[in-house]
Structure formats: structure tokens, C-alpha cells
């Protein structure tokens, strides 16, 4: 039994290694790494070129940069997990890998972990560039303490997005379709649904892209995480904006991460290599 578990873990590690090698040899990792560096650097360069001042506080500066963090996470997830499962079957490499004496769970968990490693690297690099810019502009002592909390929330959001993307990859046959559904689903469809719900004065607390707001909300001072309901005053039919509550947002992201991961693995394992 122990030998069996050790063997399964070895197979999972092997799957991670070769999947990481695939990402490194294709241009996707280069694209994502470039975005992780260029995007925050633009927030430094543009004000310089336009001869305008930076945000008055380091918190404001970081909040501005990290406003695009969720987009980078979605792009990275689509790049590394969008075709992780569908690609194996579409390209028929599954005919080689699945007919070996290893559990399918080892293969597919390995692919998921490799995608997670890649996305976490992108997110980490994005935050590091932002922090270095804060140090350069405002000084070391001005680096917001809540940056670490924002970073951890970003990693949690990345895991949730990855699980959802992996789920799409496990149910959709074509790689293009699964990647595009993941991308547009998270960039456009879910945010639109959130907005429509808010117009109907319903808080979209269960939509994962709504929870992504926590990543930048940590920089709000004070009363971070005050969340739900409220917009300002005004006439009763004024648009009501909502803000995710910390606990609820974390729970929603964790739920997406776990539930969609489990469903994706179950479906991947049961899929026929026709």
C-alpha cells in the first residue's frame, strides 16, 4: 500500500516536471512572464513620460497596479490550464500517456499542479515588480503591510480560476473552445452577470470574479472588508454597487478552487480516449 502511494506520488511529480518543461519550451510562459513585468512597469513609465505625479500614497500606487492583477491571473490560467486536459485528447498524446501503468489521477493532478506553479510564478513576479517600484518611488518603509494579504488573496483567486479553467478543459473537446470559454467566461461573462445582478440590487457574492475585488480592497483605508450593500445615498433607483466581504469572498474562492478541481479530476479520469 505504501509502495503504491509512493509510486503514485512519483508519477504525479513526473507529470508536473514534464508539464512544466512543456510550458517552458512553448512561448506561453514567456508571454505571461512578459506581461507580469511590463504591466506594472507601465504604471511607472507612463506618469514619468506624461510628467504627472504618482499616487499620493504607496497603497494607492499598489492598488492601481493590482487592479489589473485579476486580468493577468485569468490570462495565465487560460494559457496554462485552458487546454491541459482537452489538449491531451485532441492531440491524441493521451493514446501514449493513458495506456501506461500509472493512475490517471496522477497524470491529471500533475498537470493541474504544474499549471498552478506557473500561474503562482506569474503572480509572484507581478507583485515583486510592484513592490520594487514602491520601494523605488516611496521608500522601503512605505511598502504597504497589507501587500502580503493581497498577495495571498491573489494566489487563492488564482487557484479558484485555475480550477474553473481546468473544469472547462475537462468537459470540452477542443482546445480552442476550452481556452476561449475560460478566458471570455472569466473576463466578460461572469463580470457581466455580476453587474446585472447589482443592477437588480442583488449582491453577486457567489461569483468568483466578484470575490477578486478583495485583492485590491485590502488597500482601502479604513474599514476594509465592510462589504455588502451600500452605495452612497441618492434616489432609490440609483445603481447600487457592492463590495465583497472578506470572509465570504475567501470562502467562495476556496469553494470554487476545491469543488471545480474535484469535478475536473473526476471527469478527466473517466473520459474515453476515443
Amino acid at each position, binding site marked *: 500500500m505504501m509502495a503504491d502511494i509512493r509510486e503514485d506520488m512519483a508519477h504525479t511529480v513526473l507529470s508536473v516536471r*514534464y508539464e512544466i518543461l512543456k510550458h517552458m519550451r512553448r512561448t506561453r510562459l514567456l508571454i505571461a512572464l512578459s506581461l507580469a513585468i511590463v504591466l506594472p512597469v507601465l504604471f511607472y513609465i507612463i506618469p514619468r513620460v506624461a510628467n504627472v505625479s504618482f499616487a499620493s500614497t504607496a497603497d494607492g500606487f499598489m492598488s492601481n497596479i493590482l487592479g489589473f492583477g485579476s486580468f493577468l491571473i485569468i490570462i495565465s490560467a487560460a494559457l496554462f490550464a485552458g487546454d491541459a486536459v482537452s489538449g491531451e485528447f485532441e*492531440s491524441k498524446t493521451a493514446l501514449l500517456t493513458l495506456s501506461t501503468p500509472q493512475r490517471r489521477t496522477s497524470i491529471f493532478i500533475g498537470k493541474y499542479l504544474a499549471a498552478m506553479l506557473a500561474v503562482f510564478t506569474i503572480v509572484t513576479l507581478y507583485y515583486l515588480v510592484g513592490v520594487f517600484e514602491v520601494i523605488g518611488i516611496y521608500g522601503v518603509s512605505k511598502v504597504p503591510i497589507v501587500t502580503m494579504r493581497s498577495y495571498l488573496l491573489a494566489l487563492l483567486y488564482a487557484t479558484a480560476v485555475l480550477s474553473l479553467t481546468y473544469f472547462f478543459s475537462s468537459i470540452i473537446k477542443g482546445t480552442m473552445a476550452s481556452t476561449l470559454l475560460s478566458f471570455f467566461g472569466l473576463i466578460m461573462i461572469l463580470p457581466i452577470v455580476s453587474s446585472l445582478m447589482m443592477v437588480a440590487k442583488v449582491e453577486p457574492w457567489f461569483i468568483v470574479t466578484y470575490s477578486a475585488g478583495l485583492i485590491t480592497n485590502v488597500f482601502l483605508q479604513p474599514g476594509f472588508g465592510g462589504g455588502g450593500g451600500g452605495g452612497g445615498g441618492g434616489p432609490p433607483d440609483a445603481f447600487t454597487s457592492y463590495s465583497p466581504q472578506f470572509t465570504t469572498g475567501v470562502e467562495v474562492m476556496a469553494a470554487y478552487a476545491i469543488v471545480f478541481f474535484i469535478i475536473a479530476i473526476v471527469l478527466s479520469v473517466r473520459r474515453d480516449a*476515443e
Partner: protein
Amino acid sequence: MTGYAIETKGLTKRYKGGILALKDLDLQIGHGTCVGFLGPNGAGKTTTIKVLTNLIAPTSGEAYINGVDVVRDPKEALRQVDSLVEVPGMPDYLSPHEMLSYFGKVRGMSTDAIHARITEVLATVKLSDWEHKKIGSFSTGMTRRLAIAKALLHDPDILIMDEPVIGLDPKGMRDIRDIIKGKVKDGKTIFLSSHLLGEVAETCTEVILLERGQVVGKGTVAELTSKALARSIDVTFRHPLADADLARVRGIDLVKGVDPLGDRVRLAFDGSPDSGAAILSQLVSMGLGVTSFTPQAATLEDVYVSVMGDERGVN
């Protein structure tokens, strides 16, 4: 545990859309045999192989390799098996060395053993010069050879191969045939499906004929060909036949095909002795100067055609 290398019991597979690919298929493949798996397109050969290699799940029934249930414990069942199924995709970002290293590690081979076997199998399939080149630059034939190298890497006791020579040139086909013959001599079990009846006749000792998901014939090649009717006759004439005479021969009702072969003409017919006699009688009455009339021994193709009807193999 059973004494068979490969066994299926009541194997059934119904695909989405209701297509019944396999229907209560019972197979028994003994250890150390080379069995050819023949059948027309859509007969269920690849489906059977995919169930045996854990690529698809059966709708019902059981499949065993070395007595281990493939569906319940595929990891154990596939330990002593390697396979080549359809035309698999290749990881184009890897070199053959890297790809084969992956499969060696999956099988728990040591690093030294992996390196040694990679050198051996790539030499066997004539890809030594390409060991460290990216697979993405390979031709179809080269990727096929690499897939065969992967199947041979850990020297499995059981080889399951689906159309192994597809995409290879004649020399490549001969090389693979020699490899398979070598494995048979080593006492390995080979289960291979093919449309190339000549290849199967030359490499396999036993044949299973499949049609519409069910076995319609099985036995050794010798048994099956001895029972089958010979479907061709070689006829020699006093003088080579002119085109007009060939056309007259083609016009004989019972003659299905006429194939001039230099000093003789090969006639295809339904194989029945009465038809043979009738054709001889008509040739003589045409005054063509028949000097010999020799029915050919039944070939595997004759067996195939007599069992399958109008479906024919590629050869």
C-alpha cells in the same frame, strides 16, 4: 487468475449515439503467441485494443491481462504490457531521448537502464541519429518508428499493436516485421491488428477475424487456409494472349478478375470446384491453347474474403 495472456469475457462497448462497437466479445490469447486481429473498418478491432489498454471503458464485460482486470486495476494490468494504438500524437517539444526517458521513469526503470535501452531501441528502429532532435521536426514515418521504440522500451512480455506499419515505407514495414518476428522468437506475446493480410500471414501464427464487434473466425493460419477455398487459378497458354483474347477471358461470367503475370494469367473466381471446372471448360472451348490450369493455395486474403464477404484487406 487465468492461463491466458489476454482474455475478454462478454466484452461490450456501446458508444454515445448508440453505436455498438463490441458485442459480447470473448477472446483468449495464449502466452508466447502472435495473434493477428483482422476485420474490416469499423469491426471493433481498435475498440478492443483501447479497452485492453485502458484508453476507453467497456459498457459491460471484462478484460484481463495476465489475469488482472484491466478496468478495476489498470495500473497492475498494464505493467507487463506496452502498446501502439492508432496514430498517437507526439510531444513535439521533446526529443526522443526525453520522451523515452519519461516512459522509462513511469515504468520505474533506473536511469542507467533507461539510457541503455534508449540507445538500443532507437538503433532498432533506425532513429539513433535523431535521439536529441525535437520530435516536432519528424516525418510521419519517423514518429511511427518512435512510437514503436516506446512500445519496445521496457521489453514488455505482451505487445499490443494497432496497425503498427501504418505510415511506413516498404523497408520500414520489413524492419518492423523483423522486429515482431524477433519478439515472437523471444517468447513474447504479440496481439496485433492490421489490414495488411500478407504481413499478418507472415508474422502471426494465429488469426482472429472480427466483424461488427463479434468473432467470426479464429484459428491458426494453416487451419484457416486449409479450410478456405482457393480463389485464384494460374493458367498458362501455348502462346501469350493478345489483348482481344484477354478481353474474351474477362467476359467469362464466373471470372471475377484477370491478372496477366508474364508467362501466365491469374484468374480470380469464387473458389468453388464447380466454378473452376466451368471456367476450364470455357477456356478450352475458346481454343486459346490452355497448357496448364493450376488452382492456387488459399491465402489469408481468401480466408478473409470468404468470411467477410465483399470486404477486402489492403493487400
